[in-house]
């Protein structure tokens, strides 16, 4: 997968962060898609077919961990690396338990995020 441009699905309810991330991935030369909520999440994932998912944990009323757990228990999507983000450092354990591959503290260092995505790219089959 090294030569292909990765498609990263960003799930984030904050418009500002969402835009910032899109911009950042554009600079990095990565393709991105976005979701602002978890409505019909699996359907969206199916249609978008992302290589990597970057998802905020708290999404106005819904828990990102549930969505994470759903994907990880589905043979069709379980190989997709998931990076969970949260402003609560304590949430790390919960995301790990839900099957997330990475955890990113908010606010994050861009270097940190980039290195995690690069690692995730390595994982894509």
């Amino acid at each position, binding site marked *: 997968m090294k030569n292909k441009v990765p498609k990263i699905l960003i799930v984030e309810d*904050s418009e*500002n*962060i969402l835009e*910032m*991330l899109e*911009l*950042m991935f554009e*600079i990095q030369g990565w393709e991105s898609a976005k979701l602002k909520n978890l409505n019909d999440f699996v359907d969206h994932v199916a249609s978008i077919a992302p290589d990597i998912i970057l998802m905020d944990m*708290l999404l106005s009323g819904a828990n990102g961990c549930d969505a994470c757990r759903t994907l990880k228990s589905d043979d069709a999507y379980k190989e997709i690396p998931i990076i969970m983000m949260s*402003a*609560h*450092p*304590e949430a*790390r*354990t919960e995301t790990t338990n839900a099957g997330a591959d990475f955890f990113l503290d*908010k*606010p*994050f*260092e*861009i*270097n*940190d995020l980039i*290195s995690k995505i690069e690692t995730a790219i390595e994982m894509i089959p």
Partner: protein
Amino acid sequence: MSKDLTASSESIHIPMIFEGGLMGEAIRNKDWKATVMGDIKQWSPQLITILNTIISSKFPYILFWGDENRCFINDAYLPSLGLEFEIDRLLGVPAHIFWEGDVWDKVAGPEIAKIKNGSQANWSSDELIPIVRNGRIEDVYWTYSYSPVRDKLGNIGGALVTVMETTDKVKNFSALEESRNQLHFAMEAANIATWEWRPKENILYGNDRLKKWFNQEGTQSLDIENFLATIIDSDKSRVKEAMTYALDPDTSPKYDIIYNIVNEPGKDRVVRAQGMVYFDENRIATRFNGVIQDITKQYEIEVEQKKLTSLFQYSSELILLTNQKGIITGYNPAAEKYLGDIVSNETNILSCLHLADKSEAREILRELSSGRELSMELRFINNIDLTAQWMLTNFSQIIEESTGKIIAFAVTGSNIDAIKEKEHLLEKINASLMESESRFKRLANNTPAFIVMTDVSGKLTFVNEHWLAFLNTTKKELFGSTLDQYLHPQDLIIYKKTYEKAIKTSSEFNLEYRIKDKNGMYNWISSVGVPRYDVDGKFDGYTNAAMNINELKIQERQKDLFIGMASHELNTPVTSIKGYVQLLNMKYGKGDDLFLSKTLHTIDSQISLLTGLIRDLLDLSKMKSGGLKLDKTTFEFKPFLHDVLEQQEIINPDHTYKLTGKLKVNVKADKERLRQVLINFLSNAVKYAPESKSIDVAVEIENKTLTVSVTDYGIGINKSNEKKVFKRFFREEGSDEKTFPGFGIGLFIAADIIKKHRGKIGVKSAKGKGSTFYFSLPSIIN
């Protein structure tokens, strides 16, 4: 002449019966012609001869003559007939007339008849023939000899009886017999053996008992050596010595010794031997005789008595013997000690007692006569120092076994001062306990807290008014029951388990649970249970104090909600700003515009500071509201530490981390909080050592304790400040204070996290050279 003739005729005949005392005179004077016997001149010469013989004899005789057995006696026989006997009543009178009745018919008559029929002379001795003598019937013993007297034709004409009264002889003899019997009986009763030893011939005699005791039954003469062999070994030499001493004429001939013999195994007999030695004129011992008495019983009794006496003497208990009126007849030394010199064999026991106890004691003495053993507590008075002594006093009868009669009362007393004192103390303690309990209940009922007491099984024994009002129930309903029915179903199990576990170990416990109030609403209650112990230190149940923390719980929840929201709401814009700044930095930071790159760098670092501040503030507010809660898991330390260091290298690419030590270990801890501590140490190292780019991280494992230390080579800390750095709002000042911003609460939070892990946190530093921050955790698993 005729007178003369008569006289001469008389004088002619008189010589036919000569002399013969009273009896001779009576025969001569009796007018025989007027009797069946006829004229005396016509009597057979044999009769005359024998009459002359018997009347001159000093032995008593009776002659029975003719078919009618006419009686003749001599003077020697007279005493047997008693005083003032009239001879004419007998002389020449037929025997069956004089001795009418049994004397003739059964005793003398048949004997005489046998003689007259030709039997040999016979003899009868010491025969009892009671006779009337001296006006009364007397038991008289006789010895008779019957022999025939022949007439001139050779026919048996009469019987001559020699009669001796042997009453005195018989009586003496039977007295002798009786005394012999008595001696025998006494010897039997006294268990006495007799012996006689003749040293010269070396012959030993003894009675059957002696033979039995000394194992020589059946032998005729005893052997002195066998005799000695029966004596137990420990007594042998003593007995021999005593014998030698007795046999020495110069010392005492008396022999009196007590020793043991064994004639069958295991059966010791205690004997007392007493004897005398007889010497001849040459002072040579000829006889050594005496008795041996079995005194086993007496000896045992004596020994028992000695034991009892010493018990009596040395007992620390007061012992008195009294008669039935209470007059003291005996007392032991302990009694003197307790009562002083009032005690004597004249004192009444009542006068030794406390005035208040006398009537009771008098009552006891009265009851005791009717056969009861009684004990009670009485005060005895010492008449010297006038002190009163409480004694548990026992009264009992002493009864003479064979008669069943009461011979004395025994009074024993033991000192119960100590017990009395304890009782008194206990009463005081109980009173003060009751006082303190009522005070406690007053307090408990007037406090706004919930207070209950339970017994050892968890049943309620006290519920204060506040509880009752809160639950809208009554004591009656709750006592002996539990609060279970009021508990929230979700909390009931943990509530019961906690209680059961606490009761098992009698330990203190804390518990939060929900309970339904009178309006049916559940309220959060925080309760503390403290075990209660009785006077003997035995677990007695729990005292439970509880607070309604419902408001607190609501506030806490709101606070949690606020913190959660604040984290999110504050971090969202910051995340966005930080992201854009970094994007700008990526695009323009490395360009030629120095102003732009410096500005972007500054904004970036200030935002980092801001995020740190936000985190610290949130942590701080969590600590204030009930503390940071740990979420412990077991995890491998090595990948965890590598992960943290990698992240730090990405964030601070200018610094390098040198890792040393063994890492392969599992740790049970809150992973994220531990990460926070490590990040704090590592970012401090960067912050306080901007010039030195190398940071050392060392890991040590010792005694199941993991120690991680982070060393920088920066500005260091003053010794006096080493402890202060973990206090809130401390910050080390550098040469340029503005270089090191921050509130300094990071280490304070780190210290709290490590403390909650029961670990240690610290710093070693040298000003200007650098610092080593370390923490250690006790709970590692290999």
